[in-house]
């Protein structure tokens, strides 16, 4: 493998990994903020417990997003210096603004929230969390503005072979970004929904299995109490409410991703027709959506692919909103792309060994075809499971089945899979371009960049391989640690996040007590921080 291939693997691995933590941060942050708001307004102790418990898991996950996020900003310059030089004038700004206007807000106000349970007034403390959550939304917006410019460059003119920003409004209101942002946010909420549902299901199941909750003759739950800190009737309320919130969030967010995804499909049909065709492994022009295509879809050779089951009209609907528009297949698009962007890679040293070679305009269809289906499949599955879960728990608790419980817990992974598949699809579907051409701009000044030209010329394959191995190993170890800690705190239940339940039961309607602190030493209460470390 050469430097380019290794750098691409590295970007893919580190980005997909980073985007495991990010959607959970965004989605769970919003959910926890809503929970704390309900507690603030009603004083219902169940909601304080929910805030603390889900907030703890949120933080365990949040830190991983922070740690892996720094890699993202650095590796543009480290591994993709030619890309950074080419796009810097327009791409750097959203990145800088993300740090200045979003990361600062997120990190500072989250610090206030973590340590300020005692120090701040209740309302201000709650506001800090909301500000951090809104910060995470802004962060998503800015980074998607940057990404969308790579999918659909706007607001620039070419000067000396580089795109120079001339219309910031166009860049920051790129229609590609305006539909991708809600799509991503709904995707993040779907992750949080599944997370709540699976974990709450587990706890309700344990309560039944341990004989705390029983089921009456009419099938309705009878919530009980155990003489263990935190396993009282309020605990039951925590889990059943969490489960229902999770299920509803999962269903709403699936509907949201479907609606926004539909808009994205229609834009993609105009902006990146090859990606659309590759999503379908559609070789010939047509209207049908492939339910199952077989053959060697990864070969990029259309003659190998046979669509076994096809629903006529659906592809046209996805692309254009009617049932008759012919959607161009890969074969006719190749000719169009060759005419517009050249048949060969320019004979320029920045392309290394690839200089002068023929351009492969078709993305790896195995990835685009199955990535597209995995995204929709996992997303739909999670929403369906949420609906079934609501039905199964209509009488107040979960069935005794261990297998159903396991299904609910492993179901947590489905929305993660949908998120990852969606990003892999959209990023690999853009190849061979790192900046995809905007078909509305014509002539010699077209703004596009081949991925092959983007990698750092001065960096050796060995260096990038080193970082690929080092980062992958560290990420793998940290994933084990994170999951281990999440499992530990999940099994611990609410008491793991609320020491006051264990050490000194207090009236939860009174002021909040420190997160990790035991009972305060006399004379020091209200003077100290809420110690989190």
């Amino acid at each position, binding site marked *: 493998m050469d430097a380019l291939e290794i750098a691409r693997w590295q970007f893919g691995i580190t980005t997909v990994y980073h985007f495991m933590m990010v959607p959970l941060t965004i989605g769970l942050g919003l959910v926890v903020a809503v929970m704390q708001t309900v507690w603030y307004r009603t004083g219902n102790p169940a909601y304080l417990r929910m805030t603390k418990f889900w907030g703890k898991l949120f*933080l*365990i996950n949040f830190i991983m997003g*922070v740690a892996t996020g*720094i*890699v993202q*900003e650095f590796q543009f*310059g*480290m591994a993709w210096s030619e890309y*950074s*030089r080419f796009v*810097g*004038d*327009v*791409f*750097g*700004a959203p990145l*800088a603004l993300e740090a*200045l*206007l979003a*990361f600062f807000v997120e*990190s500072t*106000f989250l*610090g206030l929230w973590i*340590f300020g349970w005692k120090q*701040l007034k209740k309302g201000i403390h709650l506001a800090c969390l909301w500000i951090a959550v809104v910060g995470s939304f802004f962060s998503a917006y800015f980074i998607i503005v940057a990404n969308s410019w790579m999918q659909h460059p706007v607001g620039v003119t070419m*000067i000396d072979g580089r795109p120079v*920003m*001339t219309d910031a409004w166009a860049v920051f209101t790129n229609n590609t970004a305006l539909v991708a942002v809600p799509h991503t946010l709904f995707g993040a909420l779907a992750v949080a929904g599944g997370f709540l549902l699976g974990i709450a299901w587990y706890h309700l199941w*344990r309560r039944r299995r*341990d*004989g705390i909750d029983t089921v009456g003759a009419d099938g309705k739950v009878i919530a009980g*109490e*155990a*003489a*263990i800190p935190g*396993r009282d009737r309020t605990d039951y309320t925590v889990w059943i409410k969490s489960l229902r919130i999770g299920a509803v969030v999962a269903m709403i967010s699936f509907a949201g991703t479907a609606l926004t995804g539909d808009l994205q499909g229609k834009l993609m049909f105009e902006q990146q027709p090859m990606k659309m065709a590759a999503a379908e492994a559609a070789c010939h022009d047509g209207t049908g959506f492939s339910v199952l295509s077989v053959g060697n879809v990864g070969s990029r050779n259309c003659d190998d692919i046979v669509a076994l089951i096809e629903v006529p009209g659906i592809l046209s609907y996805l692309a254009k909103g009617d049932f008759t528009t012919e959607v161009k297949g890969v074969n006719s698009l190749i000719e169009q792309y060759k005419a517009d962007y050249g048949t060969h890679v320019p004979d320029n040293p920045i392309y290394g060994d690839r200089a002068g070679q023929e351009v492969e305009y078709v993305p790896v269809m195995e990835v685009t075809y199955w990535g597209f289906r995995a995204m929709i499949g996992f997303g739909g599955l999670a929403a369906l499971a949420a609906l079934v879960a609501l039905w199964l728990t209509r009488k107040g608790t979960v069935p005794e089945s261990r297998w159903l419980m396991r299904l609910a817990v492993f179901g947590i992974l489905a929305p993660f899979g949908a998120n990852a598949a969606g990003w892999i699809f959209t990023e690999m579907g853009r190849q061979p371009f790192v900046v995809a051409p905007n078909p509305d701009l014509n002539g010699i000044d077209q703004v596009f960049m081949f991925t092959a030209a983007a990698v750092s*010329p*001065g960096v050796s394959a*060995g*260096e*990038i391989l*080193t*970082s690929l191995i080092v*980062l992958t190993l560290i990420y793998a170890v*940290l994933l084990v*640690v994170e999951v281990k800690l999440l499992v530990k*705190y999940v*099994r611990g239940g*609410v008491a*793991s996040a609320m020491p006051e339940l*264990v*050490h000194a039961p207090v009236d939860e309607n009174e002021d909040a007590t420190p997160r*990790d602190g*035991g009972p305060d030493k006399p004379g*020091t209460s209200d*003077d*100290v*921080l809420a110690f*989190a*470390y």
Partner: protein
Amino acid sequence: MELLPTIWFIAIAVLWTGYLFLEGFDLGVGMLMKIFARNNTERRVLLNTIGPVWDGNEVWLLTAGGATFAAFPFWYASLFSALYLPLLLVLVALIFRAVAFEYRGKVDTDRWRNTWDWAIAAGSFLAAFGVGAALGLTTTGLPLDANGDRDGGPFAWFSWYAVLGGLAVAGFALLHALAFLALKTDGDVRHRARRWFVRLLPVLLLPMAGWAIGVQVLSGEAWTLVVLGVAVVAAAVAWAQARKGNEGRAFLAIGVFLVGGSASIFGAVFPVVLPSTIDPAFNLTIANASSSDYTLGLMSIVACVGLPLVIAYQAWTYWVFRRRVSAAHIPEAHSFLPAVAAKALIRKD
């Protein structure tokens, strides 16, 4: 003279200085976890002094990096790609350090805590050293060709300024952390930190002074020399104030030292942002490395609104958590029964 690129050169110098000022002490506190703190309670005192703020401090690094990308893409691309392996080390250090803060207290065993304490201490040192090395090199030069790419192998970036810059930032961070701990803690930790501060100040500031003087020799001007002189005086003031027990003034004076040292270095390098050691014709300057005036103008407007806001709410955070932390405040570690493992205790109604 180009106005907007000059403004952005100053802005980036300010961001780096802000980063060194703020994360300086939390990197230093991280290093002190292993060489200063005597037991777990003291370690938790140290951690809780920076707990609410370290993540916000680290964003200064991301903002400095992002602003360099946006304002001087050629500087960003050349510096980051030329220093590939050192920056990888910085990333690894920052990853471990961040995760360690959050995870250290989550399992109640000595082995677990000790592992993460090492991650914090080593991560903090390597991050400080690596950032310092990068800054040392961007102010003194890298072997860059006409395209701005590194000429030579993975270690062709090496010069003694990398070591000097690395030691400078690590040393400053340690000293700054001692001043910070003297200001933010009470009891034994406070007094020991002050003693260490007075004793170690000359040694810990020497590398930064050496780096600053080196840059003056390479490209200094009269005014940068004066500023450097002010910095040295500030260091002496810090020492005297700490001896007298004025912890707040010592902390401020050491901050003045940093601002002065940093201004003298960046000022001396200006208008070059990254010299080439191969041929001065390949130097990256504010003119040939910057973004368009349109982009810089846009960023200026946003920064004028955004940066004061950031400074305001971060300052508020320090105000909220202004009280000193001491060992007496640290509660016992919280161990909990896995709720689901205690079946024997179940009572039925």
